[in-house]
């Protein structure tokens, strides 16, 4: 998750200028030069030989991750408001599409509040880990192994969310949604979860109020988003089917156990 899969832009780095400092061979010394030239050679060879094959195959599974990081401060603030309080969002939920090169593609998150992004999920994931560490510290049970445990748990929770969303799409027959979109939608749960953990740090009993509220908000957000996604993906004969509604309801209800499992820190 932390390495740049997809097309990391500019992976072939130009060699840096050797700094003519006091020690002339500080950069070309045996320790750093070998590693650097080795990495450059390896990276260059990797790109040259298999770039076309990798790119054609990767674009089938991952869209360009750059698109999901095209954000700014204002987008992040407004998107957080939508995620945490989806009832108050008065606007529409559809993504703005624009024709780009003959194909229909969506506008990047910086122009469209409904577009998914990957910055918020990553930051919310990190915040959740930090907050879990805080909670453990206040309970007196902090060890670095516990942090690793919660990290793994959060990753599994994210993967479960992804499986639910993907399963929903498969069962409805629309499989054209890029994987990173679903990763982004699945990762938004950490924002609500972090807020619930913060509330628990402030006052212990607020956990039982804020946690179900956050699960409900996430359920509503996901239902509304996936409804739009399904709307654009599916054929017209199958819209508004009751099966679709049951699946969406299942997805919303599945948020509750997921949130409570991830939020049980130190249990």
């Amino acid at each position, binding site marked *: 998750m932390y390495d740049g899969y997809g097309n990391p832009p500019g992976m072939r780095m130009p060699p840096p200028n050797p700094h003519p400092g006091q020690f002339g061979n500080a950069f070309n010394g045996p320790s*750093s030069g070998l590693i650097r030239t080795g990495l450059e050679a390896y990276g260059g060879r990797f790109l040259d030989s298999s770039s076309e094959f990798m790119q054609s195959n990767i674009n089938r599974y991952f869209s360009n991750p750059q698109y999901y990081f095209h954000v700014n401060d204002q987008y992040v603030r407004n998107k957080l408001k939508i995620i945490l309080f989806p009832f108050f969002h008065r606007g529409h939920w559809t993504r703005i599409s624009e024709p780009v090169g003959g194909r229909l593609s969506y506008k990047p998150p910086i122009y469209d509040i409904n577009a998914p992004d990957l910055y918020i999920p990553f930051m919310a994931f990190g915040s959740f*880990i930090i907050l879990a*560490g805080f909670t453990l510290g206040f309970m007196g049970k902090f060890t670095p192994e516990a942090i690793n445990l919660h990290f793994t748990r959060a990753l599994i929770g994210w993967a479960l969310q992804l499986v639910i969303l993907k399963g929903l799409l498969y069962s409805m027959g629309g499989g054209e949604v890029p994987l990173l979109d679903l990763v982004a939608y699945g990762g938004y749960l950490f924002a609500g979860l972090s807020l619930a953990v913060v509330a628990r740090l402030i006052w212990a009993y607020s956990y039982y109020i804020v946690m179900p509220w956050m699960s409900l908000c996430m359920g509503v957000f996901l239902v509304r988003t996936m409804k739009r996604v399904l709307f654009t993906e599916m054929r017209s004969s199958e819209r508004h089917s009751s099966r679709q509604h049951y699946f969406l309801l299942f997805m919303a209800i599945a948020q509750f156990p997921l949130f409570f499992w991830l939020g049980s820190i130190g249990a």
Partner: protein
Amino acid sequence: MAKEFPVPPVVFTPSTPTHRRPPPPGAGASPPPAFAPPRPSTSSAANPLPFMSFDVNAAAASSSAPPLYAGPIGVGSGTSFEDEPPLLEELGINTRQIWRKTISILHPLRSADPSLHADADLSGPFLFLLSFGLFQLLAGKFHFGIVLGWVTVASLFLYFVFSMLSGGRRGDLDLYRCVSLVGYCMLPMVIFSAVSLFLPRGGGLMFGVGMGFVLWSTRVCTRLLAELASSGDEHRGLIAYACWLVYMLFSLLLRAGSRRWAGTPFDTFQQNTPIPRCNHD
């Protein structure tokens, strides 16, 4: 039953045959190489140990021995010992540069000079991480490997987020420089780990002081990242939050885990045997 080992007197001479020095002419007929098993015919009066045979016989002639031990190290093909560059220079550790970079980070109000950090090195960060681990060891926690692993993961994370956010116009930030930056900006955390040895553990004071140091680290790191990458100005807040997360992680390590020897095999040992120990809870 002390056994007496008569150690032969050791004389270092240039005529001691090694890989690097040709035997001087006239030193004697084919002196055997050092560390070779001693031939019984050339045994000296002392009893030479088979693994430690300094050939003293052939070297007894010259008395003006330069104080160099030219052992069979084999570094440098034929250059003499004095011509080699000093060890730190060969390793690429530029101590003056490390000192300058450290001083530039230490001023919390004056902005750090980014041109100093244009050439990255990992020896300064390694020193900081070692001292961080040392202060933690003084507090009874053995966290060396954890700190090294977390720094690696954190700088990978920061590099990934930063390169994605600035959309390919990264300037000259590469992974090596990112690790170096993260390591250098750990300096306030190292100071905090030293300070935290004297603060009451787990109190609000430690929380407040820790938050101050974390913010200092974040500020320096964000400024250096933004200036070095030459395109990070519009995403300063976003990058600052990522840096803040990284340094909060390290402050967690400092603040908690107050049991003695937490996280080492001593844990289970002390849980099984009822030895009275003082708790710092």
